[in-house]
């Protein structure tokens, strides 16, 4: 059981580190938008409203995009299912392994409380340290949720006992939303053959993220139950699956894509 705690902790730490890395990459991107400042009003040949038309004129043909989308979906599905299967085979070995917990006897109830109480303590610490930070409302909402989950569990301690769960709806929901997300991003963002190929490569990363995330959820379900499990499920789904996918897409955008319309100095009045 200690192994599972360590795996989930490592996964959460890696997710947090990737978010920090992503912010360090994207924060320097100048996103100020130059607005239409001058020019004859009546005779402006390319009005602001027609930017999209100009953009689409340079886009690859729709059939190529649809092909890339279909390929992307297939790759995402294949990698997600394949990697899930592979990780599923490793799971019993991990559960059986005693390398970490050798000669260590810990009360199972305590082990089950390590993650939620750990989250509570970290959020409590952040609550007092980040009052002025833009992240404070995020900390506050999550602190409220974990306190709520801990209270519900406290009122009904039997809910800490795990029961076998079917994870099919969780996997299916995340899978469908990830496919939808990826298809729309491919359709909207890809403007060249290289970018379409990059989208297919990104779909493989998305599949791997989904497989790892679902495996972590599956492991957490053997450790946590009731609201505490669902809080963990939410954290992994929101930040560990979708968040990481967007981090991957962001880094691809930041590092490889060059925009047609750069930032220009903004008048300060």
């Amino acid at each position, binding site marked *: 059981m200690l192994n599972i705690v360590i795996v989930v902790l490592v996964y959460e730490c890696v997710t947090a580190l990737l978010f920090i890395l992503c912010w360090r990459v994207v924060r320097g991107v100048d996103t100020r938008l130059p607005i239409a400042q001058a020019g004859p009003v*009546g005779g402006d040949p390319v009005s*602001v409203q027609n930017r999209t038309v100009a953009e689409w004129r340079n886009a690859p043909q729709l059939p190529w995009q649809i092909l890339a989308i279909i390929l992307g979906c297939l790759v995402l599905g294949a990698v997600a299912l394949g990697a899930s299967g592979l990780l599923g085979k490793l799971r019993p070995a991990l559960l059986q392994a005693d390398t970490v917990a050798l000669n260590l006897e810990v009360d199972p109830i305590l082990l089950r409380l390590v993650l939620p109480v750990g989250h509570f303590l970290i959020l409590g610490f952040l609550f007092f340290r980040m009052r002025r930070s833009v992240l404070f409302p995020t900390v506050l909402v999550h602190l409220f949720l974990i306190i709520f989950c801990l209270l519900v569990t406290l009122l009904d301690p039997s809910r800490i006992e795990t029961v076998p769960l079917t994870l099919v709806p969780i996997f299916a929901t995340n899978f469908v939303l990830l496919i939808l997300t990826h298809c729309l991003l491919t359709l909207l963002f890809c403007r060249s053959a290289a970018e379409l190929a990059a989208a297919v490569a990104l779909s493989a990363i998305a599949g791997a993220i989904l497989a790892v995330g679902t495996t972590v959820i599956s492991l957490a379900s053997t450790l946590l139950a009731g609201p505490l499990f669902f809080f963990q499920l939410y954290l992994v789904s929101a930040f560990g699956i979708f968040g990481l996918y*967007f981090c991957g897409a962001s880094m691809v955008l930041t590092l490889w894509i060059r925009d047609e319309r750069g930032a220009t100095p903004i008048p300060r009045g």
Partner: protein
Amino acid sequence: MTGAAIALIVAWNVSTTLLALVVLIRQVVVTLLFHFGPRGTTSEPAADDPLPRVTVIVPAHNEERVLHGCLDCLTRMDYPSDRYEVIVINDRSRDGTGAIADDFAARHPFLRVIHRPDDAPPGKPAALLDAIDSSTSEILVFFDADYLPPPQIIRRLVAPFRDPLVGATMGRVVPYNANANMLTKMLDLERRGGYVVDQEVRHRMGLLPQFGGTTGAVRRSALEAVGGWNTISLAEDTDLTYRLFIAGMRVAYVAGAECYEESPETWQVRYRQVKRWAIGHNDCLLRYFIPTLRATRQPLMARLDAALVLLVYTVPSLVLLNLIIALSMPAQVGETWASLSILTVSLTLFTGIGNFAPYYQIAAGCVSDQQRQAFAAVPFLFVSSFTSLLACNVGVIQLLKDKIRGATTQWDKTQRFRGAV
């Protein structure tokens, strides 16, 4: 818990989940319509169009940090000076706002200042009403004091009034301090999604774009026809939008009328802003939801969409409540396949609605702006979404409290961040 109570909770959960799903689906459909739907005609005025007389109104309450920039821009407008006036309302300011406005008035004959006395009714809507009453122009244009309007914006905002059914127009707001921090980057993304895609599609499809109260214009006769300016509402712009809609008029979105604004740079300021909007918007929901659905002069799709948009500041409360119910539910109904499915969908919606629902529109907005790299900040959208979630919920509770007590919620001015004077 009895079986009936559990059934009631499950029914509530399923129905609100469906409602949230409809909002989510709307975002995707609007984005697809933006790219594949019919293109609207531009609202560029023809060179020989007769230009109406225009009054630009700038409400200013302790705005010495930003007012100079706004007035400087307004003195350089590409609009005939004999058909153009600017009214600055110095609304009980305690700083140098009045002196700055007076200085401009002394140098520019088309600009005048109204100094509101200390005992005047408080709040921006009341201040605007004073300016409206003291002007005679048929077209009233509004800018907040932190805005930096470009020279051609007035012409663009008044152009759609050629259509007699247009009661108000709305331009696009662009934050100039997008790079300041994570929050301003997120607000910039939200603006792109909201204006470039959502407002644009609503305009193109004959739905109801929102008149936002600033970077917008109103036809005086239309305003009078729907009962004048509402000084009580905290969302007087939304209030006017829906009154125009119910009366059979239109709001036109003018994408080319772009104007810089200052985004809040701290979560506290953003929180107070969204809370104010949530109170005002939900107040409009209570008043106009049914009349909007019954506005038979408008097409059915427009009515349905306008009613759905009214729910925008209610959905965060429903989603949070849904999540809390879902988290408590399995103990009562057992951790069955069905309860797990409901919970998963609730969790996903919480994630989707809260964190990533607007990303479809944001992505399309960034592409349309030819700034695809701006989208790179989207993983951090949770920063603004949790601020909004918190503010919306507190706003809803505040509104309910005020309704029960019969109290009037006070206007809360947005703090400015531009450098010292």
